[in-house]
């Protein structure tokens, strides 16, 4: 039993956090959001230089062979800083290629991803056959992994018709239409999708926990500095107790993110893994909503303001609560496993 990151994990998380504090503060992020692209190529290459784009992939392709626990501290840091570069989208695409791709596809794609030269996305959710919805990272991905029926295909972005937009939490995304004609089939499929979605869900849990931490920290700071009736509002018991409940909610959510990441790496079987991931996602969805809503409420009108980072954390938490299935979805899956 050991709940600390190991030395390597901690060093990596610390260096990511330092980089984000220096180069990805709220002002820097605002500039990225205001740019037509909505993401920063410079930031992406720095993430690659830090080894992040290669972290979970085999050394055969230049990666570091890490797992979800190795990524957990990174995702927490991303959640605190609200990174909008579609890192998880690329990891998902490459995770699928590593599991379901042909040897040739792996050789063509994985080293390029590891080196930061290629971005991917995974188009899965569909309105009807061939119409994929809400594909995060699609407008800037070089290639997309697309599910169709029970099969997976690789497609060039240029071959897909896309309607790009920004999501509520300012990620670049698109709805797109897909036909198998211009796509390359991938040999593996079913289990790979389940594994990759569980992997990504665990990472979203960790990222949401990072966003929750920021929301709690900044709210606590506000309670100590904002004065009304001549005293800091943090002296009011009604607010103290709500703050305490936010912190408890955060600790419980973090525990479940640990569980999800650990089980993704080392569950005895798929059912054990999925059950842990669903349990975690239920808690993360509940806590994301609770902490997000309370943080805004305790900030009063300021909490509503676009100018405050908190309102962006709120948006991220709101999306994270629903990403890869909301609490209701995972309650149903949890009970079925």
């Amino acid at each position, binding site marked *: *039993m*050991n*709940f*600390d*990151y*190991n030395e390597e*994990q901690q060093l990596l998380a610390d260096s990511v956090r330092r980089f984000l504090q220096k180069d990805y503060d709220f002002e820097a992020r605002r500039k990225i959001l205001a740019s037509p692209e909505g993401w920063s190529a410079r930031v992406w290459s720095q993430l690659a230089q830090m080894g992040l784009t290669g972290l979970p992939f085999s050394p055969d392709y230049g990666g570091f062979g890490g797992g979800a*626990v190795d990524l*957990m501290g990174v995702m927490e840091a991303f959640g605190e800083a609200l990174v909008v570069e579609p890192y998880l989208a690329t990891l998902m695409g490459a995770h699928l290629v590593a599991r379901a791709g042909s040897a040739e596809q792996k050789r063509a794609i994985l080293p390029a991803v590891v080196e930061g030269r290629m971005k991917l996305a995974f188009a899965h959710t569909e309105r009807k056959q061939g119409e994929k919805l809400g594909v995060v990272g699609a407008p800037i991905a070089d290639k997309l992994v697309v599910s169709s029926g029970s099969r997976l295909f690789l497609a060039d972005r240029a071959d897909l018709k896309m309607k790009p937009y920004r999501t509520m939490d300012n990620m670049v995304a698109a709805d797109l239409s897909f036909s198998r004609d211009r796509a390359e089939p991938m040999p593996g499929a079913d289990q790979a999708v389940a594994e990759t979605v569980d992997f990504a869900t665990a990472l979203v849990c960790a990222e949401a926990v990072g966003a929750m931490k920021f929301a709690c920290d900044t709210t*606590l700071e506000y*309670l*100590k500095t904002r004065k009304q009736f001549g005293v800091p509002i*943090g*002296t009011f*018991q009604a607010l*103290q*107790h709500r*703050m*305490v*409940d936010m*912190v*408890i909610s955060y*600790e*419980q*959510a973090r*525990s*479940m993110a*640990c*569980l999800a*990441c*650990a089980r993704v790496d080392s569950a005895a079987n798929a059912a054990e893994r999925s059950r842990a991931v669903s*349990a975690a996602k*239920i*808690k993360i969805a*509940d806590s994301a909503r609770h902490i997000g809503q309370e943080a805004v409420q305790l900030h009063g009108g300021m909490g509503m303001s676009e100018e405050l980072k908190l309102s962006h954390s709120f948006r991220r938490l709101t999306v994270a609560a629903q990403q890869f299935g909301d609490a*209701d979805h995972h*309650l*149903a899956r*949890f*009970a079925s496993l």
Partner: protein
Amino acid sequence: MDLNYSAEEVAFRDEVRAWLAGNLPRDLKEKVDRYEHLSKEDLLRWHRILAGKGWVAPAWPKEWGGTGWNVVQRYIFEEELGYVGAPPLIPFGLAMCAPVLLRFGTEAQKKRFLPRIYQGEDFWCQGYSEPGSGSDLASLKTRAVRENGRYIVNGQKTWTTLAHYADWIFCLVRTDPTSEKRQEGISFLLVDMKTPGVSVRPLILMDGAHEVNEVFFDDVGVPAENLVHEEGKGWTVAKYLLGYERMNTGRIGESKRQLARLKEFSSGKLNDVRFRDRLSRVEVELTALEITNLRFLDRMRRSGQPPGADVSMLKIKGTEIQQALAELMMQAAGEAGSDEFAAALGRRYLSMRKTTIYAGSNEIQRNIIAKQTLGL
């Protein structure tokens, strides 16, 4: 990061589990299973079985009968007791009076009381709350006046759990009503329940059970040697006890057991999605709390620091989960088959409402976290 117990810890757990399976008397286990009232004799019988094995007070120093287990082993042991459905170990002697004596008591006090606590020869209760002093404990009024080598105690304690079983009571009493800081006028006193002037009146709670009492002190003479620590230092003693290592406050093992039983007898109700989802959410909270508890324990093991306000968090979540489980069990009781069992579950629901009130109400626990952890 590794969420699993080490091979040694698993072996330890298996050893405890195997011993419990062979030594928890069947009739006691059945009583617990049926949520029946446990008599003083039931409680002491189990206490003495554990004492015979040398396992009744793991946290004590080895010289007084402790096992020398580390915090993780102690946690595993306590959770296994809860998980198997053993009668509770009453904490007032083992986990409250004893740690106080070990920290603040004289050699004579330790020698006099600790072996009898260990063997279950003295049954202890706790004299803290008073009619006017609940959460605001420092306002307590029970008076102790020193004269001729003894204290004369007058006043009243209330909500005194199992006072009607007790041989001894440890009390917070006011020895100096004039001190400017009211905490400084309080002392920690050990009182023999057989002393003339001590009387006990039952308080029946809404589940019909006699568990708590009022205790009256009417010119009770207490030898001065029964004072623990210095006069006027009772508040220091009480605060020490609050921070004492109690890592099973979340009652994880016990709640896991209730969850498993609930699933067993409510299987018909699990087709009801509304019920099923409420059950799942409690299970998720319990899983989260178990990991949170282990995270705190792991941190404590590394730092060697007492858990502090972490215990408050475990108390809040642990009791909320216990109550939620008791409520679901009551609601599913119709599925359980027997009217008697359903009635017991109903009484249990009523009784469990106390958990968020006792041992420092959950609101007081939030105050503690706000102050100690958050600096508010």
